[in-house]
C-alpha cells in the first residue's frame, strides 16, 4: 500500500454485495434487455415496410419474366436471365454511359456556377439576404414544371429562345434544340443546371460564412496573391461543403426522370435516353416489369457508387474541419 498526498491509495475494491429476491432481479435484467427492442420496434417496422419489403419484392421480380399484364408470370423463376440479357443489350449500356456523362457534366457545371454565385454573394454586403432568397426560387418548382417550361423555351417553332435568336439576327433558321441529339442533351442539362445550381450555391455560401478569417490572413502574410489564397486556402476549406452538395445531387441526378420525360422522353431516337426513362418505358409501357427491375438494380448500384465516392471524400475532408481554430 502506498501513501500519497491525498490519502491512502487502497488495493482492489471489495466486491459489491447484491441484495433482494431473485425474482426482482430476473425481471429487472430481462426488462432492460427488452426495452431497446420495444423502443426501436416502430422504426424497425417502418424500415421493413418502406425499404426491405419493396426491395425484396423487386429483387424477386427481377428474377422472373414478370409482365404487368400477366400477373401469373411473377411465379416463374428464371434465375439471372434478365440480367444476362441486359449485359448483352447495347441500348441499355448506351443509356448507362449517357447517365454517367449527364451526371458528370451536370454536377461539375453546377459546382462551378454555384461556386461563382456563392463567391459573388459573399462579397456583397448590401442585399445579401434578399439575393439568398431569390437564389432559391428555382428549387421551389416541381421538376415537371421546369421540364415543361424549358420544353417551350427550346421549342423550335414557338420557343422564345429561337424567337429571340432570330429577332436579334443571330440565326435565320430555327434551331432544333430538342430534336438534334446533342442539342437535346444540352437542353436537358441546361434545365437541370438551372433548377439545381442553387443547391451548390447555398451550401458553398454556408461554407464561406463558416470560413475562419485567420488562415486567409496568414496566407496573405505568407506571400499569397488573391488567386493563391483562393486556390490553396479557400477552396480546400469549401470542398467538404461541395461534397455534401455532390452527395445530395448525385442521388438526384442519377434518378433524373421528370425533366427528361417531359422535354424529350428519351428521344430523338433514344439519344437522350437515361437509365430511368428507359426503366420506366420497359416497365410501364412495355409492361416488362421483371426486366425493368433488373435494370433498376443495376442503376441503384451506380447511384450507390457515386454517393459512396463523394461520401468518402466528405469524410476525409471533414477530418481537418475541427483544426481551423
Amino acid at each position, binding site marked *: 500500500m502506498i501513501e500519497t498526498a491525498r490519502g491512502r491509495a487502497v488495493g482492489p475494491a471489495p466486491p459489491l454485495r447484491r441484495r433482494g429476491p431473485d425474482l426482482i432481479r430476473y425481471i429487472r435484467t430481462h426488462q432492460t434487455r427488452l426495452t431497446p427492442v420495444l423502443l426501436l420496434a416502430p422504426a424497425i417496422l417502418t424500415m421493413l415496410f418502406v425499404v426491405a419489403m419493396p426491395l425484396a419484392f423487386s429483387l424477386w421480380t427481377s428474377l422472373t419474366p414478370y409482365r404487368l399484364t400477366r400477373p401469373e408470370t411473377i411465379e416463374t423463376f428464371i434465375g439471372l436471365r434478365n440480367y444476362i440479357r441486359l449485359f448483352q443489350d447495347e441500348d441499355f449500356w448506351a443509356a448507362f454511359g449517357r447517365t454517367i456523362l449527364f451526371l458528370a457534366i451536370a454536377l461539375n457545371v453546377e459546382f462551378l456556377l454555384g461556386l461563382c454565385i456563392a463567391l459573388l454573394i459573399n462579397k456583397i454586403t448590401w442585399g445579401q439576404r434578399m439575393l439568398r432568397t431569390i437564389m432559391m426560387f428555382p428549387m421551389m418548382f416541381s421538376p415537371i414544371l421546369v421540364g415543361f417550361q424549358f420544353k417551350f423555351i427550346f421549342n423550335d417553332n414557338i420557343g422564345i429562345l429561337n424567337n429571340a435568336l432570330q429577332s436579334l439576327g443571330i440565326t435565320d433558321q430555327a434551331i432544333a434544340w430538342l430534336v438534334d441529339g446533342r442539342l437535346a442533351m444540352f437542353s436537358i442539362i441546361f434545365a437541370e443546371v438551372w433548377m439545381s445550381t442553387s443547391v451548390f450555391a447555398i451550401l458553398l455560401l454556408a461554407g464561406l460564412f463558416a470560413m*475562419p478569417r*485567420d*488562415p486567409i*490572413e*496568414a*496566407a*496573405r*502574410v*505568407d*506571400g*499569397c*496573391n488573391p488567386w*493563391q489564397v483562393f486556390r*490553396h*486556402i479557400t477552396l*480546400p*476549406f469549401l470542398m467538404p461543403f461541395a461534397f455534401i452538395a455532390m452527395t445530395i445531387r448525385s442521388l438526384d441526378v442519377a434518378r433524373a426522370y421528370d425533366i427528361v420525360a417531359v422535354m424529350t422522353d428519351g428521344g430523338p431516337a433514344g439519344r437522350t435516353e437515361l437509365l430511368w426513362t428507359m426503366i420506366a418505358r420497359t416497365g410501364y409501357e412495355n409492361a416488362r416489369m421483371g426486366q425493368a427491375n433488373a435494370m433498376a438494380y443495376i442503376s441503384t448500384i451506380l447511384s450507390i457508387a457515386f454517393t459512396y465516392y463523394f461520401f468518402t471524400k466528405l469524410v476525409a*475532408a471533414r*477530418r*481537418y*474541419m*475541427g*483544426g*481551423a*481554430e
Partner: protein
Amino acid sequence: MSSISLKKVAKSYGRLEVVHGIDLDIAHNEFVVLVGPSGCGKSTTLRMIAGLEEITEGEIHIGDRLVNDLPPRKRNISMVFQNYALYPHMNVRDNLGFGLKIAGQPQEVVDERVREAAAILGISELMDRIPAELSGGQRQRVAMGRAIIRDPEAFLFDEPLSNLDAKLRVQMRTEIKKLHHKVKTTVVYVTHDQVEAMTLADRIVIMKDGHIEQVGTPMEVFNHPVNTFVASFIGSPPMNLVPATVAGGQIVLSDETRMPVPRRLASYTHDGMAVIVGIRPDDMTPVGHGIHDSGETANLSLTVELAELLGTETLIYTRLAGQEVQGKMFDPRDVHEGERLPFRVALDKLHLFDAASGRSVRAT
C-alpha cells in the same frame, strides 16, 4: 531584418478613429513589445504593419521602403496569430513549407528548411499530423515554425501565448526569448500581459486608447513611469496611488499623515501642489522585513486588513489615508488581521505625479 518606423500613423474604422497618429521607431533586430489593456489598438497597429489593415493616415516604413500601399505578401514579414491560424487541411510539414512553396523555392530547399525549423522548435515527430490532431502548445510551435522558416524582415506576434495555460505560457515565453537570440531579427510583439512585456522586451511601448503613453526599456518604464497609467499598468502587484498635497517640504495625505518630499523630487514640487503619491508594494514594508534604514525612508503605522502568503513574501493589504494599499513583507512572519504594524517607505523609490494631469512631476 530591418528597422520599422511609424510616422503619425492613424487608423479609423468609418468615422471612429482607434489609433491616433502614433510615432514609433523600431531598430534593426530589436525586440519591441506593444502592451496595453485590451482594446487599446495594439492589434490594429500590428496589422497595419503587416498590411492586413489599411493605414488611414501617416507612413510606415520597413527598412527603407514605404509600405503603405504594399499588400502583405510584398512586405516580407512573418506573423504569428493569437489563434495560430494554421492551415487546417495541411499537415504540419505543409503548413511549415507553404510560404516557401508559394515563393517558388525548389522542393529540396523547402524540405531542408522545414527540417531545420522543425528541429529548432522540437516538432519533428509531428510532421504528418494535421492541426486538428495537435494540442494548443504544439499548434503554437507550428505557428512559430511557420514564421521563422522564411527569412523575413521582421516577426510580428499578436498575443501568441494568450490561448495557452499558465504553465505553458511561461515555458513558451522563455522559448521565444531564446528563439530571438538564435534567430536574430526584428520583432514586434503584442500582448496585454505586462509580465510578458517586461520579460521579453528590449523596449516596451505602452499604449492606451490608441495613444502611446511611454516607450522605454523595461527598467525605464518600471523605474520612471511617465504617468499614473503606466505606473499602475507596469509592475505586479500594481503601484499604490494616493492623493496628497505638498506643504512645507512634506507630502500631506488626506488624513494628515506626513512624509518628507524625497530629495531628488524636491525641485519639481512647490507648496500647495496637488499630487498623487506612488509607492510600489515592494517599497513599503514592515520595519525589519525588507527595506533597511540606510536610504531615505519614512515611517508609517498601518493596520493589517488581509495578509496573502506567497511563501517567500507576504502581501499585506492595508489602508493609507482611507485608501486600500498593498505592502510586502519579505522574510515573513505570521501576521493577523487587525494587527498594527510599523511600516517603512523607501522614499528614494517614491513617485510623485501631478494630480490634475496624472503626469510624473519630473516630466512636466
